[in-house]
């Protein structure tokens, strides 16, 4: 009973839909951990959506982001009998059992902002901020434009096993190897700062020491890019080494303003929450399905299509932040 037939699931959903029309749909979002600023914005998307459509929203998260720390929270939500669990999973596999219990209890499971790669059968759909297959190429283009498409670059990632980052890094490697536009750029190292400021800093310092000719660093993680920027700022070498990657505008504003970082990218976490709530309510009410190829309308976001692997993207390409637009974003 590991693989749940999709049809049966949808049937069950439609069945229960009739009963729950009268009441607001209970949505819970389980974050990776509390105190993670990224989720403040994402959560706001949920909150705002539930102001306008018929849902009740709650946010819970464990204190720390261990693989197993979300389990008691998931168990509790099952016990509370919520309708939809949205979750940013801390582990691609440790949560399988409890997802199974949730599905057995008729709860819709959506992964948001990260997926359980390899265990997709345990969730109904995943909502990802953008098309992850394009992130690698976008980031290479970003760093290329900053360094004039020439010179050594390095990657400062999160943990060695972080699935999303590894997927993007794969894309970066492919792009640099295959696209003649980047022929003069060499990727000299990929290092991991474990999403800790201390480790990210020492790794960044080591990069600069080991590769004196380094021209650019891509840090596709919010902790990493801030640490990298700080090192560059502290050494005063912003004109020699260009830092870019994925970062939160609120954390990077200072570095944009003082010229340490010229540009970086991200998507809108807010829209993930906004879309997830609309999709969850639609799914529960039977007005939307999780079938591949289905489309639906979400206010402000336009037409959304369900892609391969029941995945949904909130935006097609990354947003680039720079000195011109940084003040327009407050997350």
């Amino acid at each position, binding site marked *: 009973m590991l693989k749940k037939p999709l049809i049966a699931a949808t049937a069950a959903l439609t069945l229960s839909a009739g009963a729950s029309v009268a009441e607001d749909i209970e949505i819970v979002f389980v974050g990776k*951990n*509390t*105190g*993670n*600023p990224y989720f*403040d914005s994402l959560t706001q998307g949920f909150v705002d959506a539930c102001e306008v459509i018929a849902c009740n929203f709650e946010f819970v*998260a464990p*204190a*720390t982001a261990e693989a197993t720390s979300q389990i008691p929270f998931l168990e509790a939500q099952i016990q509370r009998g919520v309708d939809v669990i949205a979750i940013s999973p801390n582990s691609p596999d440790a949560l399988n059992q409890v997802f199974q219990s949730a599905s057995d209890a008729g709860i819709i499971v959506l992964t948001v902002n990260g997926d359980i790669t390899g265990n997709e059968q345990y969730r109904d759909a995943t909502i990802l901020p953008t098309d992850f297959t394009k992130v690698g190429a976008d980031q290479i283009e970003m760093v290329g434009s900053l360094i004039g498409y020439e010179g050594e670059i390095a990657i400062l990632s999160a943990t*060695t096993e972080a699935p999303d980052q590894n997927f993007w890094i794969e894309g970066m490697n492919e792009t640099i190897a295959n696209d003649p536009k980047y022929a003069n750029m060499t990727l000299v190292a990929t*290092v*991991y*700062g*474990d999403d*800790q*400021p*201390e*480790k990210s*800093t*020492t*790794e960044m*310092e*080591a990069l600069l*020491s*080991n590769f*004196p000719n380094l021209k650019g660093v891509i840090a596709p993680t919010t902790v990493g890019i*801030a640490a990298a920027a*700080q090192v560059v*700022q*502290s050494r005063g070498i912003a004109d020699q080494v260009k830092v870019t990657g994925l970062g939160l505008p*609120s*954390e990077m*504003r*200072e570095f944009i303003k003082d010229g340490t970082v010229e540009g970086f990218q991200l998507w809108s976490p807010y829209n993930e929450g906004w879309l997830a709530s609309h999709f969850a309510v639609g799914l529960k009410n039977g007005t939307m399905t999780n079938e591949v190829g289905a489309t639906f309308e979400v206010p402000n976001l336009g037409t959304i299509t369900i892609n391969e692997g029941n995945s949904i993207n909130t935006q097609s390409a990354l947003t680039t932040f720079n000195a011109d637009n940084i003040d327009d974003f407050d997350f």
Partner: protein
Amino acid sequence: MTFLRSIFARREAGILVMIVIFCLAVGLHKPQFLTGQSLRIILLLTPLIMIGAMAQMLVLVARHVDLSIGSMLGFSAMVVGLMYRELPDIYWLVGFPVAVLTGAALGLGNGLLVTIFKLPSIIVTLGTLSLYRGLTFIISDARQINRSVIPTELKAMSRTSPIFEIPWIILIAFGIALMTYVVARHTQLGRQIYALGSNPDAAPLRGIDVTKVTLIVFVLAGALSGLAGILYASRWGFVNPSNTGAGFEFQVIAAVVIGGVSINGGVGTVMGTVLGVLLLGCVAAALPLLGIPGSTQNAIYGAVILIALLIDRSVRQRGLASMSRA
């Protein structure tokens, strides 16, 4: 009988030798490790641990231990961060007294539990480790204090310098080490802390107010943790309820134990502790340079603590053996 003294003297020399050998060995593979730049990296890694180590050293010398140092750091940093967020117009330097006083108050809590209820400090601080962390979440509503909230002047302290291009934060750390040295070595208080740890039963016979000195030690540990807290905000530019200071106590204990501070109280020097901190800093800076994954760091810390314990014991045993006849 200068044999024993020479061991203790050698203890510091020993760490120094270890640092030199380590640096040379790394430098052999990676010559860039032996540059001024890498000294800057090492020094920038150590200020917080240095201050925490001074706190822990005083506590250990008094024959106690404080496991809540990291949580006190986190809480104090959070209080300061919240202050900056809620009162954006406040003069940024106000953060320092606020952080130090907050930490001191938490340390006082530890001290009172230890002295009033006569509880073992290790269990008390294991409890407050969790308690203070929990309170940090509660006061912050589990939200991070973001970069934008921390005053620019404060953040600048981690890279701007008043002298010799040494950033403020490093100067402060070494200043604290110097002050700790003065207190430990040249004030009545310091000597009483050593006396207390050296022989707690004899302390009252020599007119030492054990309760008072114990309280002061824990308050100092708290205050220094608070200072480390605001410097955390300066160094990393944010305060996070769950990460800030987490695991800090273990790094600090590792540094202090390597530095030759005895868990049996009474023994430990500021010099040894500083060297212990620097050794850890060298290791932390060398690992990525050598391409060794950071995940080995904790195993190394743990092994180093165990080895230091064994060394500490053998030094003590030789001390006992030499006591039988002089």
